């Protein structure tokens, strides 16, 4: 099973943001979405999640996602924006509310049990009764992942989850995502900026610039000049203990 994006284009009024984007993401894969600011990363995620209506097709399991209602899509795709509103809700309630696609009128005992098990799994029990605005950035990212899990969708689209996180938290969040992908057989697309983290954790890399796909490849196939083409920065890609690291020329 896979997520297929075919010839996707999108414009805001006369401004073309995405130009003929196509790629395939398979189950159990983490796809890193890379590119400079304004390349169209967020727009691409919004188009896949149905928030924007692009030209082209988004197909999952043979079903056309971009013809579905919000309610239907929300059972298949979760999207997490760069920042979410300052809501005054408690951590527990915000995770519980993410069960929305699966409820009819009110939350059942099953919903509470699922939220509880997610909280346990992510080790955030100590936060659960705090208000969202009273926790740190790293904790907030974990809560956001908990919300994504509570939605129980097969595709997670995450927009820059590592923003404002220190090194330890960055690694923790990526490890967590990685283990969840394996456990639950998810498709995860993460827009991010740190190439080295992408090299370490991603299965596939999608390079975007000015709305065009510059390259879609695995780490092994990565060509040096792709980074230059995408970012306009010369980079050295070194092999270190079987891993790739990139270092810019200064």
């Amino acid at each position, binding site marked *: 099973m896979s997520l297929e994006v075919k010839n996707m284009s999108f414009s805001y009024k006369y401004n073309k943001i995405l130009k003929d984007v196509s790629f395939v993401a398979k189950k159990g894969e983490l796809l890193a979405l890379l590119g400079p600011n304004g390349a169209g990363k967020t727009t691409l995620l919004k188009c896949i999640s149905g928030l924007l209506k692009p030209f082209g097709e988004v197909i999952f399991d043979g079903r056309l996602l971009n013809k579905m209602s919000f309610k239907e899509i929300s059972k298949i795709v979760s999207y997490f924006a760069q920042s979410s509103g300052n809501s005054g809700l408690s951590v*527990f309630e915000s995770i519980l509310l993410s069960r929305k696609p699966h409820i009819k009128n009110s939350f059942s005992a099953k919903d509470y049990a699922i939220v509880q098990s997610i909280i346990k799994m992510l080790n955030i*029990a100590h936060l659960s009764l705090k208000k969202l605005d009273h926790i740190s950035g790293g904790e907030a990212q974990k809560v956001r992942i908990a919300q994504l899990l509570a939605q129980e969708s097969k595709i997670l689209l995450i927009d820059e989850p590592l923003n404002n996180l220190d090194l330890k938290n960055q690694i923790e969040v990526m490890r967590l995502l990685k283990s969840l992908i394996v456990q639950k057989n998810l498709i995860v697309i993460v827009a991010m900026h740190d190439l080295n983290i992408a090299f370490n954790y991603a299965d596939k890399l999608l390079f975007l610039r000015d709305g065009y796909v510059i390259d879609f490849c695995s780490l092994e196939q990565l060509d040096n000049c792709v980074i230059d083409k995408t970012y306009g920065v010369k980079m050295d890609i070194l092999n270190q203990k079987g891993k790739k690291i990139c270092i810019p020329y200064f």
Partner: protein
Amino acid sequence: MIAKTYLKQKRIKLFYLLALVIILFVLIFASVMIGSYNISVYECLKALVFKANSNSELVIWQMRLPQALTASLAGGGLALCGAVLQVVLKNPLASPFTLGISSSSAFGAALAIFFGSAFLKNPYAVSFSAFLSSLIATFIIVFISKLKNASNETLILSGVAIGSLFSALLAILQYFSSDTQISAIIFWMFGDCSRASYHEIFVIFVLYILSFLFFLKNSIDYKLLLFGDDQAKSLGVNVENLRLTSMVIASLLSASIVAFVGIIGFVGLIAPQVAKRIMGLDYFLISSSITGSIFLVGADLLAKNVLQNVVLPVGIVTSFIGAPAFFYLIIRGKK
């Protein structure tokens, strides 16, 4: 464990709600008892329960009880609309009057008074015209937001524009009105809970219950809006639709309240803010509504008794209490 603690915390809030309801009933009882003709507790209970045939019974059933019920329903309804609008427009300053309800209904009432002689045979002419006029205002806003998009900015800005348009129309009418007409218009604009009889109370009650059920059905979606539009959409909420329908229903309810009792400011603005500070976001709609009822019944009680031999229109009192209360909330800051 965590779920249990969470549910327990929520259950405690139910006691807060109960306390608010008790305060409301005490205030309603007090406003039935206290007035230029004082009635003792015993006599009051007797009249309410046994309908004993006496002077007090007449005063209570024909004057004070309908007025207290009107205050309670109007306050509750306006506060409910305010709470919903503050959530869907994401603006703590939103109230039923943000969308131009007050000036459009004032214009409608003034129009009926201006062309009075043809209409005045029907006692509901002024109310009906006020209601119709605010309906027009609401649908202009809906039309504009369908044309563009139903974002909160579009709605608020259209509301401001509609408000000033109808204020201008009202000013023109007043300019050409006679002295008696002007005083009738101004008298109508002072909100007053003693105008409604049991028939009107019944109409407001039915509309209140229907709107309340609609809002309650969407209460989870309102909470999801707190995460931001995109997040709410990705959880399956049809945000634009929800925002428009909520706005229309809140406008209908507040327009019908205003049509029967006139313009009562500040309740819809301040009651949700107070409720949020007491209760947080749990049961927000219910707590706002009850707080609004308490506020207006209390203000009505004051309006009747603060000056000897004069009954002030309650609209003046709410603004008098409302403004300093609002300052207090601003200075104390966000909790």
